[in-house]
């Protein structure tokens, strides 16, 4: 025990803290891009904020986990619920971002297919209901977190959005430039790793870190592709 925290909890808190630190740095240095007023830049900023929120909720949950102070269970349950809601919304925003950024889908077209966001919205409502019903997870009287029988459903919804993100991008590139898809696989990897570690090793949470790295790699991968040159003084993209 270290300051009343288990080693697992301490490790997660420190790494989540590092993630918040990294993302705040990224927000500061990408300020100039947001001023371009483009929708994908705004969505990228939203994803950064959501990743910070995920890490912050994770820290709160792990700080309150297995503690005996009054209100610890309520804080733990509230933080975990907020974490999973943000996690689902993160995937929905991510799908929107990918469509705008990689496939240049217009807002009107996205609006036509808004049904695709229904599973996420339903999942968010179910997570609120879960505070009473405990279908997905629970926190017992000893303030210990448990997975419940429907736990996997949250990850299936997340996986659905991941597939929905990859499909249009793969179709858009149409096999003509397979190298252009490399960043997409690089940003998928931390998400999948984070979700698997979270699912199988409840003790250590890697989801917030995985989400943050995915956002960061997506930006690094795609921004370096969009080289805006001004060779010979002409403005071109």
């Amino acid at each position, binding site marked *: 025990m270290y300051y009343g925290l288990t080693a697992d909890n301490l490790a997660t808190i420190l*790494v989540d803290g590092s993630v918040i630190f990294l993302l705040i740095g990224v927000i500061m240095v990408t300020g100039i891009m947001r001023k371009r007023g483009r929708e994908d830049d705004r969505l990228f900023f939203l994803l950064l904020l959501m990743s910070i929120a995920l890490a912050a909720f994770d820290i709160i949950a792990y700080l309150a986990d297995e503690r005996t102070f009054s209100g610890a269970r309520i804080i733990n349950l509230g933080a975990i619920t907020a974490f999973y809601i943000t996690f689902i919304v993160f995937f929905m925003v991510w799908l929107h971002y990918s469509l705008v950024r990689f496939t240049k889908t217009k807002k009107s077209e996205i609006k036509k297919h808004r049904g695709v966001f229904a599973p996420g919205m339903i999942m968010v409502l179910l997570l609120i209901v879960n505070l009473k019903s405990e279908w997905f997870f629970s926190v017992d009287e000893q303030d210990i977190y448990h997975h419940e029988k429907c736990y996997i459903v949250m990850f299936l919804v997340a996986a659905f959005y991941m597939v929905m993100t990859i499909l249009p991008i793969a179709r858009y590139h149409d096999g003509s430039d397979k190298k252009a898809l490399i960043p997409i696989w690089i940003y998928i990897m931390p998400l999948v790793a984070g979700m698997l570690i979270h699912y199988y090793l409840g003790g250590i949470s890697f989801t917030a870190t995985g989400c943050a790295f995915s956002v960061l790699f997506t930006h690094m991968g795609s921004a370096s592709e969009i080289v805006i040159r001004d060779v010979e*003084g002409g403005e071109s993209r």
Partner: protein
Amino acid sequence: MSAGGLVSIYSNVVSILLLVGMIALVQKAKIEDPVEKQIFLILLWVDLWMSVFYIIVSIRDEKLLPFSHMGALVLETVIEILINAFVLGWFIYTDYRLFHSKDHLHRNVKSYIILGVIISIMDVVNIFTEFLIYFDEDLVYHETSLYVVLDIIRLGYCVASLVLLERHKRHEKRMKFFSVRSFFIPMTIYILLYYFTPFATVCLGIGIGLALIYVQMINEQCYQDMETGFYNRLYLSYLRSQIKQEKVEVSSAILFELSSDDIEKVSELIAAQLPQDCDTIRYGKKSIVTLAHVKDKSPLHMLAEDVKLSFEEAGEEIAVKYRLKKKKETGAEFLDRFLEKI
């Protein structure tokens, strides 16, 4: 497993994931300068190997695997040499980032690496003499009082790179977005964390610092003219919108019309004279515009004269046009009037 061991392993695993992703992306990225890309990649690889070896050290400290006395010493020596390589690589990166010159680097590299090589040789000799670090019978790590020499030299490299950055600010033409100084913030925080706690999280701190530098590097590329290193016209569009919204003030402007075909050389001449509080944009094939945001008109007027003088000394030709914002007009009106005449 102890909290220190678990935190160290977990943070280094996270560091490895961050660095592997970055290495894959940097290798694929279209970075304008291949030398800069290469040095940056080396820094990433060194940090990656440091993370790997820190995990092995944590496993040794937790006694999860049996290690011989010699094995522990060799492992520690590898980490020490990697740390030396990183601080040296960082200093070289700073130098190249400032001067963008292979010749400059070749001329100075021997003097840069000499101390790094000496402390690395000391680390290797330590395997046989244990005059810097040693392990007791329980394989617990200890440092002798001489170890401080290594720390001082490593710190010296970091301080020297900061001094270099400070002394040659002017070579950083695009100071608005990019500053390698930002790297020192996470690195310092995580080194302090390492000194005051049992958590070996330094590699994660370095990884975060490198990630921030890389994000800045690619952002900057969007607003940068590849040939001159000044801003491009996309930046001018952004700047114009800022001036229209009165978020940025513009007081005067200079147009440099170049005759030379060696744009890189003449842009260096202009860059060497630029004050910090102005924006320089490549406007056309042979025209460069500098906008001043200061209210005092004298510095930019002097700048025009200084640039003319330096061109005369270099035997190059340049035409300089200088305009001041009128009292009644707004910044946006002044900028439009100035650009219309080009």
